[in-house]
């Protein structure tokens, strides 16, 4: 497996995402809200003929919805057959990291604990490796709880 990661800023935290999970990174235009949902579902957005469920990951972590004007980029991913857009603040790079993922160290913020799997060292800094599916499934659990 190659250690290609996408590095992004998400809810004020540096995160790394396995590139194989990422289909694309797009700038979100129109988001149709889905009423009756928690703040972590920003709404639906059409990417050409596909309909993305846009997940406000920051809201999932902080419980605060990202204001509409600050919505920018989204990572497009296909998670169990459905297309999702996961909102991120910025994307810095896609890069190969030779040593791959390192085990988590230190005391991780409980807010991040359900989502982080490991650490990826890049550019002299640690980045949280987050499997994208956890945002969807974790979100569902929170919803159910």
């Amino acid at each position, binding site marked *: 497996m190659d250690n290609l990661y996408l590095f992004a800023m998400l809810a004020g935290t540096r995160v790394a995402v396995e590139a194989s999970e990422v289909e694309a990174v797009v700038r979100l235009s129109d988001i*149709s809200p889905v*009423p*009756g949902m928690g703040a972590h579902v920003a709404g639906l957005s059409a990417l050409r*003929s*596909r*309909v993305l*469920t846009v997940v406000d990951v920051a809201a999932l972590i902080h419980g605060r919805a990202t204001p509409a004007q600050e919505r920018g980029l989204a990572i497009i991913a296909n998670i169990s057959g*459905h297309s999702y857009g996961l909102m991120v603040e910025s994307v810095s790079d896609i890069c190969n990291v030779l040593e791959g993922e390192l085990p988590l160290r230190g005391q991780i913020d409980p807010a991040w604990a359900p989502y982080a799997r490991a650490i990826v060292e890049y550019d002299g800094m640690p980045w949280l490796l987050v499997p994208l599916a956890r945002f969807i499934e974790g979100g*569902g659990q929170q*919803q159910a709880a």
Partner: protein
Amino acid sequence: MEGVPRTVAAPLFHVLLCGFNRLLTTSRHGAPARSLWGLVGMDELLQEFISETQETLEALAGEVVAWEADPSDRDRLDAIFRFFHTVKGSCGFLNLPRFERLSHAAEDVLSDIRAGERKADAGTVTAVLGLMDRIGELTDAIATGVALPSENDEFLIAALTAQTKMAEEAPMPAPVEGTESSGTGVAVSRQGGQSGPRTIRLPLTLIDQLMNGVSDMVLARNELSRKLRERSADPELDNVFERLSTCVADMRDVISKTRMQRVERLFAAIPRMVRDISRDLGKRIDLTLEGGDVEMDREMVEMVVDPLTHIVRNAIDHGIETPEQRRAAGKPETGSLRLEARQSGNQIVIVVSDDGRGIDTGRLVEKALAAGRISMENAARMSADEKLDLIFQAGLSTATQVTAISGRGVGMDVVRANVERIGGVIALDNHPGKGLTITLRVPLTLTIIPGLILRGGGQHFAIPRAAVVEILHDNNDMLEIGSVGGAKIATIRGIRHSMVDLEDVLGLAKVDQTGPRAIMVVRSATGIPFAMGVSAVDNHEELVIRPASPLVMATGLYAGMTLPDNGRPMLLLDAAGLANAARLPNILDDRAARQLKDEVDAQAGVEMVAALRFEEISGERRLLQLSLIERVEDIDAHLFGRSGGRVFARLEGRLVPVANGLVEFDREKVSALRLRDGSREACYPVAAVLDIVQMPLVPDMVAMHGLLSGVSVIDGVHLEVVNPFALFASLPDDPVFERSRGRCLLVDAEDGWTREILAPLLRQAGHDVMLGLPNDAAVDPQDVILCSNDDTAQAAGMMGCRVVRLRASPRAAGPQDASIYRYDQDGLMAALTGTRG
């Protein structure tokens, strides 16, 4: 990930074009052919033609030899004929005149031989083989790009025609062995050559991708259209764009259809299967298939095939008896088996009904006991439905012996599992000794449904058209919206519905608007209707529904989503989900609940109620709360009479107490108000009915006196208000008629006939009538359910009470049709009483 779809898409397109190719070669349309050139390079088609021809030539090589040895060999002749025919067809399209001339000549001769008009002598065979070889050479030449002199062609054709002439001069002694009459032979062979409608199997993902592609195209077109509008008008450009739009729209229609399949396909194998099985078992079965034109998702069709097959097998094997048994049971020897498909809201309903022996629940219980599944105690406590439900237990079957057809341990449990796996529901309506009806309800996923686009909270939503009973504007006179304790009640033509505003359910802010809001009466597949206020209902559209992501589905409010042309995703509302989310009570539940509401209304000081203004026989004008009055009718004066100190009117064979005690009238016909307080009824003769007015619920002057509760001022006139309480209290205590009977539940509450004709009739006959089913299934065993629809009948039958099924046609659908013609009053009444007896 990206690469895969592309490589897969290519062969599909190729296949499509080959299909077109065949179509075009036979119809010989020049124009579409040219437009196709634009789509794919000629080389590609030519290459296809060359390789196909070469392949066929190779395969035919052996045949040719055999044909030479035995020119009367029919099969080989046919194979060779098909070859020439295909070549001729293809090269006409590819503009290869030499191929066409050669193959045409050969085809003519061969078709004569096939028709028996010519004998395939050695000379002809040789000439034909010469042409074949020539075609082979030409094909190779094209493949390698070498020119080939053409004079040889003429020589070869001449050789063949010379043979023809010779043959004509020397008439053949007898037609070739095995030839048919000339006309049909040719026709059949031509069909063979053109290869009929060809089908291919494609993975669904391909079609999905194609569909997405077309959707992208539509979006691009829309954007282009916007851009064009921004520019100055250019008629020429507009024309071209118009054409493109039409093409795209057509394309989208066609592609959408690829996913849909008529249920016919599901039914296709049934007749044969029924015939085979019934023959094996010595049973006679009359099979009826209905609703084959209903379309459902092809994936769904495939999922339903197995369960359906199993159900049909079961019906024949275990359900329908042998002719002898049927005769003994007093049934016609031929059993009837009926399959029906229809769309109901966002579901496809497939009903399989037979008139066989039904499920012997007693035996099921015995088996379950024997298998240790249930205890004796359990068995004793089980309701009929629970017993019936045992059929879905693995390994339980009522079949006494394992037969080759069914009963191999693969039972209804597997059927149910399969149906539920695709989100379906299976329901049984068992009539032991009379038959069994099995209803499968499967959802329509990713499919096209008629939908309404509505607005609420500044957003657009879609709702399945089938879920909407009616739409009114909130300024409509027929509609009255009351509110009490936060609950909204919409009264439409006297029927009260729980009302919610879509914005409230979804937690949206209401947007100010100038026009009236729209009130939709929404009914889900199972629930009772409720009124839903929305900003507006915009339009009606065919919607391609896609499944929404699980995150969104988790709300329970939505049934899916759709992407309209504007490119903004739209959510499809789930009527049942909305009702759940709003925690709506089911107001149709029972009368008591409604009356309770009335009282609540009164306490909350709801000012006005509708009242009937009428003139008493004695001349006073009075008011009576309208809700108590069932109707007004003219009654013959001689029907009124006194008995045991009480006054009654003889109506519909019963004695109905007369509320105001009048018995003598000076006219032949008397207008009478028919009153009902829920359980008791009364008759109130009046001089005339004036009109309906709004009166204060609490009279302006309360003066309880006899039948009167006070005086209200309506339009400046003082009118006495009749006290309904006193009115009913004054009625004889012991009912004239035993009323401990159950209610009549009219399932088809939204049906006009049921509401306007049946309900009044039943009420006249003294039955307690309720429109719709109580949602909490609180059905008393004494209740009788009336419906006109097999499916609801079956669902109703599950509730544990008797069902009377009505039919619109005077004639029974079959000897075992237990339904009653809906205008057969005697039959209906007998059925209602009989069901209780």
